[in-house]
């Protein structure tokens, strides 16, 4: 067998993505002739685990489906259960949920930022971004008791009320982050080398985006306005003002700019939340006392949340017992990092693989939930 091509593996441990995932590449020189994604390094059978647990027990593990941004899972699960059981969530809990979701989006974008710089060998960006993300995690720690996995948004409400002075500290942090943003721009997003690398690479054209069902910032970078927060507002998103940034280039740079603009939008949303946070104490709906008594009525529901990577949906079926009959989790990465990536990588270069993967916001655990 004459060997025109060589086969190498990119990953599974890799700065391009948060989580373990490998791409098998056939290369001629450094040009990719075939790409095949290998997932399964993180498979833990979450859907089955949820089906074996009571609702209350199950809510603590859904956050683990997505490491960089766990809260949309909790939100989806909680909202789905509430819809099935017909629970009424107090308004303050809704505000708190919105706040947590936006904080989570903010820290997920910071983590993306870290990867985007790191995948180009620009080691300031990961260090800065992760350091600033840690400040959000500090706030999370205060609010929820956990830094990464919060287990905060529970069916029926949220688990804890705001600590003393929390909103003030959040406001301080937002001011700090806003002052840092121009520095981030200077460091990476306006860096001439970054522009050279990112422009015109990893292009998703609008037709492909539609065909593959691309969502979130990746779709918005192709010129489509698509955001669950606007299209089907949940929690308090109908109450706050924000815009959905779009770009038209569809390349790595376009996606970076969309995410960069979303950081600003998140800051603005969080400021509005701070201003409008109600003072009341009620944060939980009236719930059965024993967790074994949480009987989910028959019925099914599809709940969607806009995560930092796009539409994140749960399809949930209740069958009248205390356990859910079926839960189907659909994260955006399954589209982006499997089907689309395999297509996008063909004829691109090995040097760009990590950058493209990161710009798609790939997150393997939500592929193999």
């Amino acid at each position, binding site marked *: 067998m004459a060997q025109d091509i*060589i086969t*190498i593996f*990119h990953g599974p441990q*890799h*700065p*391009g993505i948060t989580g373990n995932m490998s791409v098998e590449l056939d290369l001629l020189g*450094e040009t990719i002739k075939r790409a095949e994604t290998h997932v399964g390094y993180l498979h833990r059978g979450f859907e089955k685990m949820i089906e074996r647990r009571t609702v209350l027990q199950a809510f603590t593990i859904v956050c683990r489906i997505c490491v960089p941004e766990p809260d949309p899972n909790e939100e989806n699960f909680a909202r789905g259960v509430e819809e099935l059981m017909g629970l009424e969530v107090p308004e303050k809990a809704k505000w708190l949920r919105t706040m947590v979701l936006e904080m989570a989006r903010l820290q997920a974008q910071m983590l993306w930022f870290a990867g985007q*710089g*790191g*995948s*180009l*060998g*620009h*080691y*300031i960006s990961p*260090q*800065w971004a992760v*350091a600033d993300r840690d400040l959000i995690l500090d706030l999370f720690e205060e609010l929820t008791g956990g830094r990464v996995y919060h287990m905060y948004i529970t069916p029926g409400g949220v688990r804890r009320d705001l600590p003393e002075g929390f909103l003030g500290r959040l406001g301080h942090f937002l001011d700090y982050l806003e002052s840092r943003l121009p520095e981030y721009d200077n460091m*990476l997003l306006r*860096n*001439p*080398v*970054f522009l*050279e*690398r990112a422009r015109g690479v990893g292009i998703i054209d609008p037709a492909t985006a539609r065909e593959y069902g691309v969502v979130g910032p990746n779709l918005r970078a192709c010129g489509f306005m698509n955001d669950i927060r606007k299209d089907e507002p949940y929690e308090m998103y109908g109450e706050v003002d924000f815009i959905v940034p779009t770009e038209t280039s569809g390349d790595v740079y376009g996606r970076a700019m969309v995410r960069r603009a979303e950081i600003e939008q998140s800051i603005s949303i969080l400021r509005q939340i701070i201003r409008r946070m109600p003072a009341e104490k009620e944060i939980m709906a009236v719930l059965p006392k024993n967790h074994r008594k949480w009987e989910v009525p028959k019925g099914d529901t599809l709940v969607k949340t806009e995560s930092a990577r796009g539409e994140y949906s749960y399809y949930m079926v209740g069958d009248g017992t205390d356990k859910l009959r079926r839960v189907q989790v659909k994260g955006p990465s399954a589209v982006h990092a499997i089907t689309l990536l395999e297509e996008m990588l063909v004829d691109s*270069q*090995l*040097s*760009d*693989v*990590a950058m493209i993967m990161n710009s798609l916001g790939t997150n393997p655990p939500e592929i193999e939930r």
Partner: protein
Amino acid sequence: MLFTIFNSLLAVLLTYSMGMLYYGFYRIGNARIHRRVGPPLWQNVIDNIKLFAKREAPGHGIMFHLGPVIMTAGTITSMLFVPFLKDSAWLQGFSSYGNLILLIYLMVVGPLGNALAVGVSGVPFGVMGVTRGLTRLIGLEVPFFLSVALLMSGSGTISISEIMMAQDSFSNWNMMAHPAAFIVSLFSFVGMMGASPFDVVGAPVEVYSGPQAEFGGKYLGFLAAQRVMFSMVKLILWVDLFLGGATNVFILMAKSFALFFFYFIVGAAFPRFKTEQAVDFMLKLPLIIGIGAVLVRFWSL
């Protein structure tokens, strides 16, 4: 002869300790830019000693064994053909037997050994790194050759010592006398030192881990040691050629540290180019400046 050998040993020791010091600073400085505390200044030495203290090293036969040897020998040989000081019998090595063109080519011999060892190890990632390195070399050497050719033709000699001697006062430093050549050479300098944006060769992200993927233990120890020494050789070469040389070790350190600092800030501030972008860049801006300088120089003739 004995004096020369003693001098050679001295040169090796000096470059090793200078290099370890500079790269210790490099790590701390980078950490500060990253807003970290960073490792202690002697962390590189610790790492190096640790590598030599490993119980065993993976190998792939005799050629793999010889690779780091050729690499280190190439580095030290080039070091010995660079005069460190002017107006001094010390630290001259064998520089009177060689010249600048020889040195430029000697600097490629070491990497050849490395490339052979990488090739024989059969790691595709390593060979990719080597190929990138060789491709990048096109971009680095052409502007560099143009700039040193300007120097050599300007001073009428190809001997490093004589080029260094000719720069007797600050205004006669070649960076003042031939500013265009100096600027052009700085681009190559950043690339040759392996700083971003020209460091895609050993990029841990863009390819698994660059040419040195398969080396470990004592081999990696030798490679790490030669890397800092090689960097020092380049720094000293630039001091000799453009910064007026040095009459004693302290001036040498001051001047080379200034250059090192330049390398450090450029490397810290930018992401890396892809190989062909690096070469294209080098064959555009620096080459145009260089050609402009040549034309300016010979238009008047």
